[in-house]
């Protein structure tokens, strides 16, 4: 998780990975989730964080969280076997 914690994330959603030099763009939702993951929140905690920060209706939030985590795994920003707790 160190690599995730080392990410530099600007307010505008620009992400820099000092380990690889790669850069990314994230939207506001992903930015909030990255913050939550860095803090070690579990699935319920992440869902609560999203509901607190955004106007959510019927979206499948756990599915979206898993989708982001898959992207993080794929880009090597979290270990290969990483799963959100809960």
């Amino acid at each position, binding site marked *: 998780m160190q690599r995730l914690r080392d990410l530099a994330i600007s307010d505008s959603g620009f992400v820099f990975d000092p380990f690889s030099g790669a850069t990314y763009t994230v939207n506001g939702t992903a930015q909030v989730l990255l913050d939550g993951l860095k803090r070690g929140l579990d699935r319920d905690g992440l869902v609560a964080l999203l509901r607190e*920060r*955004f106007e959510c209706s019927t979206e499948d939030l756990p599915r979206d969280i898993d989708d982001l985590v898959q992207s993080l795994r794929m880009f090597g920003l979290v270990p290969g076997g990483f799963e959100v707790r809960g």
Partner: protein
Amino acid sequence: MSRPLYDRPILARHQTGLMNKFSRVASMQPQTHIDGVPVQTLTEAYGSPLFVFSEKTMVARYRELRDAFARRFSKVRVTWSYKTNYLDAICKVFHREGAWAEVVSEFEWEKARHNGVPGERIHLNGPLKTEATLRRVLPEGTLIHVDNFDELALLERLADELHLTPKVAVRVNMSVGSLTAWSRFGFNLESGQAMTAANRILAGKRLELVGLHCHLGTFILDPDSYREQAAKLAGLANELRRAHGAILSFIDIGGGFASHSKLKAQYLPGEQATPGFDRYAAACAEGMAALDYPAGQEPTIVLESGRALVDDAGTLISTVIANKRMPDGQRGLVIDAGVNVLFTSFWYDHDVVPAQPFGGISEPTVMYGPLCMNIDVVRDTIQFPPMRTGEQVVFRNVGAYNVTQWMQFITYRPAVVIIGADGRHGIIRKREQLETLLASEEVPSWL
């Protein structure tokens, strides 16, 4: 303070590499209406997926083509290529504008006759002309484009039996520039085969040689090809005049003009790469200047256009079924139209945009159809904005070949509608249902 609306999380990696000379990708705009009619209105009325044709665009393209050639040739005939799209309503738009019919089978000939085209205003082309077909069409004066010597012999025999002098054209194939020659159709020019066929027709006097025809190929982006083709056809016509005194009534340069779609191997988008009709016409006129015919007896220039007339007029609306994250990081978008209805996905990178306003970060996306087949990819990698299930996308320039080459496979084929020049819209082909398919099935008594 109100909270922002939730949007699915997106993490898009920046791609590094050499910048192309066009810099960044053009920004995508939604297409919410087709000829002034909201996309949502259309799908609520006719379902999804849905093909939508614009009468206004068809008419505009037809007139643009006709005028481009009419400015350069005293006699021009546009024939509507039935195989491109033979729905009656589509054909009627072009026939109303004055197009004759170009058909390649007895089925298409029947369609043209059904649409009110007189037999003598039909050019029958292609390699499939059975004796039964010819017996049916010859008495109606249909123009026959001869493909091979067996067909020529058959026509001569039928001319005797039916006491007719069929009007025929010699279909010619040739090498032009770097194009792959479509040598399987007609008689070869360079080997002398085309001249032999024409000599036989003119000497035999059982058939009337009225024209020459060459179809160079398809989606030809280089107008210069038509200059060379026209010059070679003019050369052959000159030879026939010198040898036999023959004056042909038409020279058919075929079709092959590109639409605004983009081939997979093509670098530039259609709006930059596709030549205007004027450039094709100018090239053809330069080549045809080699024709040595008496003043006032110039042949009619025949065009067999299909794709270039109707492709830009067709749109496919499709609905998002699901989002997926693929193992390579791309987003997978499952939509309700696959290669079964959008057959041209196999060779085009279709221009596809959302049908409603959108926001958020675009990411590499691959669009899959609804089939349980790995080949069912309707658009591979495209930067595409976030889409929710139930939202719609619009594929543009899909009017040619899809509603003829589509397959009834796994699911029903969708409805097709037309939007009239005045904004009215109506169905021109119903969505298939179980009864549609059962109507042609039978179960033997022992089952």
